[in-house]
């Protein structure tokens, strides 16, 4: 009996009476592996910068700050750690949003930017920064960006489901609205005062330089609530990938579950856009990288791609800080540079197989 349990390569977990989850050992291994990788990335990010530490030193500063000089502790705890954590959390949120969208639309090229959150948030942000600067204080900017994102996403959803929802309509209406909004933001970029435009552009490129612990806490809350809800929905997601009819026949009501999932991904995207600007390329590639390890099983795919998304953003941010040293490149742009070639190769290979 013991032997058969091992050979099936599952671990049966029964959290509540009547429920049983099969967890594969390989999934557990990859989750642990990527958690360790994320930890290493965080340590590396904390150690590098204009003030360089060794790995061991940063470990000591993070885990036993009392014994270390005050100055070093402040560098790490007040400047680098909030930024790193915010990056990791945003990456995780966007990756989950990406998984949800790619499964709902059954399209490997869908990204969280499609549902217009990014574009709506950018336009709102630009309006408040460039046209009417000073009307709302800095800490309310992310909230207004988030509201803008929600409104635009609601518009896209209502247009796409106006005469019968279908994934392809959602995607294409999203593309249309997004390009109109990006024309809006281009107009603001072109006619705004150049100083204001540059600070807005920094933000739009996905930059983490103004993050404090408060934003990290807010982000963590969003990620836990919305990401957790999305994880609970892994069975409907598994079925939705097989097609609306199959899902319907297996008891998934896609009229109810699709709007709910979309709402979750909008919440995840907009909270991370509000914290770190536009980083949505993570949402496109992190799910693909995660699929290399666990295929389309969403129970494992969601946590794995969240971890990978976190790793990617921390990597992009640290590279952007250090490669052109005095100049800071926004993490989002670095990620596109690093990720785009990989993405293209991956997609062309997928298409041929």
């Amino acid at each position, binding site marked *: 009996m013991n032997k058969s349990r091992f050979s099936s390569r599952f671990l049966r977990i029964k959290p509540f009476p009547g429920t049983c989850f099969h967890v594969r050992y390989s999934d557990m291994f990859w989750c642990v592996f990527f958690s360790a990788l994320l930890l290493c990335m965080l340590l590396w990010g904390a150690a590098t910068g204009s003030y360089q530490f060794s790995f061991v030193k940063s470990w000591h500063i993070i885990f036993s700050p009392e014994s270390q000089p005050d100055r070093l502790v402040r560098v790490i705890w007040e400047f680098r750690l909030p930024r790193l954590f915010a990056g990791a959390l945003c990456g995780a949120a966007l990756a989950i949003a990406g998984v949800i969208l790619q499964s709902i639309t059954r*399209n490997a090229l869908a990204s969280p930017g499609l549902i217009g959150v990014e574009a709506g948030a950018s336009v709102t942000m630009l309006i408040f920064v460039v046209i009417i600067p000073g009307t709302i204080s800095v800490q309310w900017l992310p909230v207004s960006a988030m509201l803008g994102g929600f409104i635009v996403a609601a518009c896209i959803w209502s247009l796409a489901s106006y005469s019968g929802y279908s994934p392809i309509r959602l995607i294409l209406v999203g593309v249309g609205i997004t390009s109109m909004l990006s024309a809006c933001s281009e107009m603001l970029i072109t006619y705004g005062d150049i100083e204001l435009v540059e600070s807005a552009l920094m933000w739009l490129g996905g930059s983490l330089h103004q993050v404090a612990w408060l934003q990290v806490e807010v982000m963590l809350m969003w990620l836990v609530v919305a990401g957790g809800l999305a994880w609970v929905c892994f069975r409907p997601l598994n079925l939705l990938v097989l097609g609306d009819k199959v899902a319907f026949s297996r008891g998934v009501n896609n009229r109810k579950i699709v709007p709910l999932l979309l709402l979750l991904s909008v919440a995840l995207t907009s909270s991370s856009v509000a914290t770190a600007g536009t980083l949505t*390329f993570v949402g496109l590639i992190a799910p693909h990288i995660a699929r290399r390890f666990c295929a389309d099983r969403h129970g494992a795919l969601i946590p794995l791609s969240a971890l990978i998304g976190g790793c990617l953003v921390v990597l992009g941010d640290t590279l952007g800080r250090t490669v052109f040293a005095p100049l800071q490149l926004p993490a989002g742009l670095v990620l596109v540079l690093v990720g785009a070639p990989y993405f293209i190769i991956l997609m062309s290979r997928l298409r041929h197989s």
Partner: protein
Amino acid sequence: MMQSQRKHHAERRFPTLKLTGVVLLLLAVVVASFWHLSLGAKSIDWTTIWQALVAYDPTNSDHAIIRESRQARLIVSLVVGAALALAGVIMQAISTNPLADPGLLGINSGAAFFVVASTLFLPMIAPQYLPIFAFLGAAIAALIVILLSGWEQNAERLVLAGVAVTAMFSAMTAILLLIDQQGLDKLRHWLTGAIGASDLDKLHWVYPYLLGAMVFSFLLVRSLNAFHLGSRVAEGLGVNVLLLKITGLTLVIMLSGAVVAVAGPIGFVGLVVPHIARLLVRNNYIWLFLYALLLGALLLIVSDIAARMVLRPYEINTGIITAFVGAPVFIALVLRKMK
């Protein structure tokens, strides 16, 4: 035998209706051009414009305004509109996709990135060679889009591949502009598709490519008509489909690359115009090409007029106006055609 041939001839009678349409469109373009010339910081009446065009008097200040600055802008918008519309028709024909457009599929942004990169990194290169970089960028972007989506007839996948490629190239452009902030100030107007009087010089660099591509595309008419019936039918009728697609793509790259080099990335003209043209003349490509050329020129002149009228005394970039016109059309198309 003779009788059947005569009957055949009778069926292919002279296309009076379509020719009338062409003449009417030509008339509309002329009227819009006059309107375009008359608008500006100083409005000039139409008789003066006519005199400035046929009997130029350099001492007259109104004549000088028309001939020196406004005429250049008009010519640029005419050529740009016609070229973009033609590129759109060819693109939709070879990809058999009603949603294809050089702007949506990332070709414009690829060309724009290469132009920005070459102006920032290789300032010693003479500006006449900018179109070459634009072609290179357009070609690379097109290849990536094909790699991502394949030749298959999947509208959604093609558009999404275009979105991903656009995101990639615009991020790279943004990085370049963040590194070089003077460049940002210099290039930010051009990057949203601006038409200005100074662009006439740039037009001189790309004339040969544009004219060549336009003339050559009329040679493709018969093959495109056959291809419209499906690639198998076209192969049966003796069309080399692969060659046709490659030639068509090269033409699109040349047309849109040249336009980007002149006026920056202007989107949606290539999407909207072919659909309007198809409403008027169905699917005979020789008429489609003619109508698209005229309608594209007309659309861009009208957008340019709007760009100068809406927020006087400021000017909005023409590319932004075309996006505002084109995106709703795109959404309407999606809602009607996609299930």
